[in-house]
């Protein structure tokens, strides 16, 4: 019999999960964060429902501090595939002037991302939200279910998760409760890159090395994406050859120096790299268990 490759099997599993949600849930939504994992997740959705368009909207929680290119890329993808895109911004946070520079990464992420996401889910009454998280990203995710139950308050209780057997998923929730669904749970970072290569999936050019204006803060290279990043006295942005391993709010996302301008070069760098993906995310660099705390509070 034709042997399916590991990518074939991962793809089939993800498609099965997405179809299950559409078959069983009332109002699903796909959280689209514009990064490479979201790009793969979107491709999987296009495949799962072809020739129909994915029968759910995409939701982007815009913290107002995303790289400009992310926003352009997002709108272009939505147009190209005729997708229903919902953009949600926490207007209360904007009114209070919350930002990563004035309030620090913890407050900013909580208000503009975690709270904003909950607002959006409540406002539209979504009962299932697809996310692109992978189990290999972080220790606390290794035990996460594919269908992750959330209380009406959006809380995740690591001690009280439903057992998940075979590919039979318990999608049932009471009113107000919801599911976070992770169709790419079993993918690794390398699988993602291999799949992007195999399927020729477009990703934002921020992943590719280019000369970009950066400043160095506490050893982290921050790109000066707009005039909101205050420069210290005498500090001047330098043009450096950099790329990003993950995309988020630009003041919170470290660049790495790299000459990798093609997909193959990126994959090569990924294979020989000696630091894990999350290292570039300023918000995770504190204590080991912090990700888990954020999750319990409703961070994706």
């Amino acid at each position, binding site marked *: 019999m034709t*042997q399916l*490759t*590991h990518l074939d099997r991962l793809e089939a599993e993800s498609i099965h999960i997405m179809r299950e949600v559409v078959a069983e849930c009332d109002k699903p939504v796909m959280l689209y964060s514009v990064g490479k994992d979201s790009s793969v997740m979107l491709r999987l959705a296009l495949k799962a429902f*072809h020739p129909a368009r994915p029968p759910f909207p995409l939701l982007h929680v815009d913290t107002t501090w995303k790289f400009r290119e992310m926003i352009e890329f997002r709108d272009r993808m939505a147009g190209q595939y005729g997708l229903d895109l919902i953009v949600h911004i926490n207007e209360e946070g904007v009114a209070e002037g919350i930002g990563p520079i004035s309030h620090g990464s913890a407050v900013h992420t909580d208000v503009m991302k975690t709270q904003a996401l909950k607002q959006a889910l409540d406002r539209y009454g979504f009962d299932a939200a697809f996310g692109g998280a992978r189990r290999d990203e972080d220790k606390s995710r*290794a035990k996460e279910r594919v269908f992750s139950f959330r209380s009406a308050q959006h809380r995740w209780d690591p001690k009280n998760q439903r057992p998940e057997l075979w590919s039979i998923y318990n999608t049932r929730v009471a009113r107000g409760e919801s599911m976070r669904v992770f169709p790419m*749970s079993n993918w690794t970072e390398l699988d993602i890159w291999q799949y992007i290569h195999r399927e020729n999936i477009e990703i934002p050019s921020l992943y590719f090395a280019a000369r970009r204006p950066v400043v160095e803060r506490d050893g982290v290279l921050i790109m000066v994406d707009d005039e909101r990043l205050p420069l210290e006295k005498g500090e001047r942005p330098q043009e450096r050859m950099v790329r990003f391993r993950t995309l988020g709010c630009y003041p919170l996302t470290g660049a790495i120096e790299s000459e990798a301008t093609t997909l193959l070069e990126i994959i090569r760098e990924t294979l020989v790299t000696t*630091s894990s993906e999350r290292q570039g995310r300023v918000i995770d660099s504190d204590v080991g268990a912090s990700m888990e705390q954020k999750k319990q509070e409703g961070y994706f």
Partner: protein
Amino acid sequence: MAAREDLASADIATYLAEQEQKTLLRFITCGSVDDGKSTLIGRLLFDSKLIYEDQLAAVERDSKVAGTQGEKVDLALLVDGLAAEREQGITIDVAYRFFSTDRRKFIVADTPGHEQYTRNMATGASTADVAVLLIDARNGVQAQTRRHAYITSLLGIRHVVVAVNKMDLVDFAQSRFDEISREFDELAGHLEFASATSIPVSALDGDNVTARSTRMPWYEGPALLGYLEEVDVSPQELAAFRMPVQWVNRPNHEFRGFCGTIAAGTVARGDAVIAMPSGRRSTVDRIVSFAGDLDRAVSGQAVTLTLADEIDVSRGDVLCSGDDPAEQSDQFAAHIVWMHAKPLLPGRQYRFKTDNQTVLGSVTDLKYKVDVNSFAKQAGKTLELNDIGVANIALAKPVVFAPYRDNRRLGSFIIIDRQSNETVGAGMLDFSLRRAANVVWQELEIGKAQRAAQKHQRP
């Protein structure tokens, strides 16, 4: 990932093309507390170099605080998970780990060796192709080993490999290893494995984990990783086509596609199919995919089929090869694993969710419970958390199925509590307690007999 260092100069495109041909193996590791499971998994991850320096630095830091290895890095800490568990110093759930070699990608279901054991192990085993059972060479086959072997077999894992660990503590003695593997073979003889293999290892030092050990020259088999790279778990070539219909894709009036993951066999354009339970027949018109139509699709692929005729097919149905449809029934004998603190109540209505539908039903009669250590049958009125039993179940409508032994996807179900929505149990269908009266069957029986007569062979 052995080639990692050479990669800078290697032709990355060729390398990738090769990597994309890798297959996938899912396995579960089982052992009692302190048998060395975490150390073994940490070793596999570490030696396949999927540990990044920053993660290792964190482990080195943690080793000094919580490790059991003095100044040595405690690899077990690499695979410890949630904060709550770290405080207790034990793992409490099923965790999934990933690593890969140039031949295969591996997904490891890591289950802890204590209280919630049966539930967690059944969960991890449900998606595994292979089980790695750890035995401490000093202790040999224990009650737990019997339990692990039983659950492994119950969940339909066909290949089991016994890692006889801590060989360094028994002077790498062949006699001790032989004794344990004989004991295990005896045990495996009572269960339904296609293969049982024993490998002497020392997880702590890496002997026979990723590379053959020089300290046990008497052992001639593969290292554990070599075994895992080689073991053949490909689906049966000749099985009849089965595709549980998961969702019907109807974007407009012209298109009606039946979506599902192929559970057995293969399908090609023009194949005759029969939709069960209705028994309506048609042929496959197209196998639709995003990248263009396919000529053929195989077990494990998630596909969209269109049929030549407008027949009524919906979620819950199973498309089957035209001359060999699956059975259907509403009453079954089944093995059940209970997963909730509230015990099973025979007679109470639960939701039974199969691969592609949810049906109301109840357990009508609990035949017996199984003692997982002795495999003995015990009388019982109910199943408590972590109990396993054999019961009759009755569903509100017939479902299309195959015995779990023959097909995991078509023979499995979970049990959901109607009030709390929690998953309270999981089960495996053994056989139908009655054949649902059905015209399709007679027609088929006749068809089969005729064909056989034409070919001058017995049906």
